[in-house]
């Protein structure tokens, strides 16, 4: 369905307004880096950014699912609990401080994410639960795949600031910031990290460990 839909769009829209972008983010060794958050923000402040949406951060087997959620500014996120145990979700990140009551079953009302930036989530009952909500004010955003690639079929041509962040990068700051120009016929970009990312290793341990 999706390619057909895009072809349909391409026929209707003027070509200059729908340029494909293919981006790959690689480390200093040239290998693609997966699971990074990519945002594209136009340098033209008058251009509208992505509209708020409704998103879900679930809790399954004492883990947040997904581990990283990227949402436009002003979005609402609901936190269902698919576990049989109670959770108590909170964040003390300056971008969005909140706390939900201890609950199982029916989730509390959605949380509004009204400030741009990185929000670290925790559970007050299960200290090992950790996840991130990345709140963006940008025209385009997404995450790189296993090869470090990310693509958008119809980027509006123009100048953009690209920011790349990795949840295991030991920093809340982007690991790469760069301004690029997307021409009317699209672009294929390879962005290279300036220094090794030295990512943290993700825990391989069962989620009911470290209760002591």
């Amino acid at each position, binding site marked *: 369905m999706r390619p057909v839909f895009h072809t349909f769009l391409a026929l209707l829209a003027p070509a200059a307004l729908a340029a494909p972008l293919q981006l790959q983010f690689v480390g200093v060794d040239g290998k693609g880096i997966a699971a990074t958050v990519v945002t594209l923000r136009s340098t033209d402040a008058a251009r509208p950014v992505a509209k708020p949406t409704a998103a879900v951060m679930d809790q399954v087997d004492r883990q947040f699912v997904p581990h990283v959620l990227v949402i436009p500014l002003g979005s609402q996120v609901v936190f269902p609990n698919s576990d*049989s*145990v*109670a959770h*108590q979700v*909170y964040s*003390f*990140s300056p971008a969005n*401080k909140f*706390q939900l009551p*201890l609950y*199982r079953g029916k989730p509390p009302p959605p949380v509004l994410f009204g400030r741009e930036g*990185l929000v*670290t989530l*925790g559970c*007050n*009952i299960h200290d090992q639960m*950790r996840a991130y909500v990345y709140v963006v004010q940008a025209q385009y955003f997404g995450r790189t795949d296993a090869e470090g690639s990310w693509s958008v079929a119809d980027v509006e041509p123009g100048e953009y600031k690209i920011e790349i962040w990795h949840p295991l990068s*030991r*920093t*809340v*700051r982007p690991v790469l910031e760069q301004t690029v120009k997307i021409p009317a016929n699209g672009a294929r970009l390879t962005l290279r990290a300036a220094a090794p990312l030295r990512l*943290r*290793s*993700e*825990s*391989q*341990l*069962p989620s*009911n*460990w*470290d*209760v*002591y």
Partner: protein
Amino acid sequence: MNNRTVRTIEQAIVIAGAIAGLLFGATAHAEIEASLDLRLVSSDGRNSFLDGGFGKLRYDNDDDGLQLGRARLAGRWAIGGDWHANIDLSAWSLHDHNAIDVTEGWLEWRPVPTSAWKSNLKIGAFYPPISLEHRAPGWTNPYTISSSALNTWVGEELRTIGIAYELEHLGTAEGGRLDYGVEAAVFGWNDPAGVEMALRGWSLNDRQTPLFGRIGTYAYGGRQQRVIFSEIDHRPGYHVSGYARWDGNLELRALHYDNRGDPEVYKESIEDYAWDTHFNSAGLRYDGGRGTTVIAQWLDGDTAADDDPTMRWTFNTKFVLLAQGFGRHRLSARYDEFRVRQTVGSNPARLSRENGNAWTLGWSWAVHEHVDVMTEWLRIDSLHSARAALGEAPKAIEHSLQLSLRLSL
């Protein structure tokens, strides 16, 4: 009423209360955990310390065959205002002083952090933060069936029965690399701690002494059923501890313990002194990204009872454990060294002493969400001078092979 009757009534109230609480919890909004650990055992161990011998193993050469490892029922429930209640009940053997008894039970105040500083207050009976092996619910070691000598002793003789406050700084939630915390606790009812170390020495097993239970041990004149959790001198003890954790996977812990026992105070009803026990412990744990874990711990302390200068012992131990996960399987290997010394005696050649080391190999397999299988081979090489009193050779090399089937709710 004599002491025995009072004690029996106390136990009945606590256990009935705990079971009532769990039943209430099962109907109200509580979280219940239940598990059963069945063992197949083959051992050439000397008469076990649990039977009044100087054997180092929980199961000796009379215990081959099917055994109950542990049956456990635990509950946790929110009681409002950031407070939670926890209770952990276990049965270790049908021949124990109480068939079902409490290993831990505490109330916890756990406010939601509004900054990187996080507070936690516990009141009740719980483990001091020493073990880096016991990561699974119910203070269970997921690497090997038997714990290291160090953490076996923690399970046998230590429990913080009092109040503990912990302050943590969760730097990693702010994009930093370091989490750290400090804890201080004041406790009572841990005056006999040290008696097993002095009279019996170290062991490697998985049994935890229940709060109202006994530990079988050697005594002149035959086996004795000792009470470990009792207040004798009415002087509170304390421990202070701290941890630091880098990038969520390299953790260092240290603890200083002093039960501030007054060794001249004797309690007739349990036939024991307030042992004056101090120790320092430290440990390191690293969880690598490819399922590798390394744990090393060290403990060094001393204990004394009575005003007799010969009733003094020093003890120390260390171990290193290496584990590697492969999907649902995990292989673990551990090497322990341990030692106890009586410090003063009329005849230096006859001071009581113990030296030993142990190798443990474990394999665990998470068959299913509710089924785990674990096997363990354990070899303990020890020399204990007091074995001569039983007409045994002081040196013993004991082995056991165990297969554990663990079913959990």
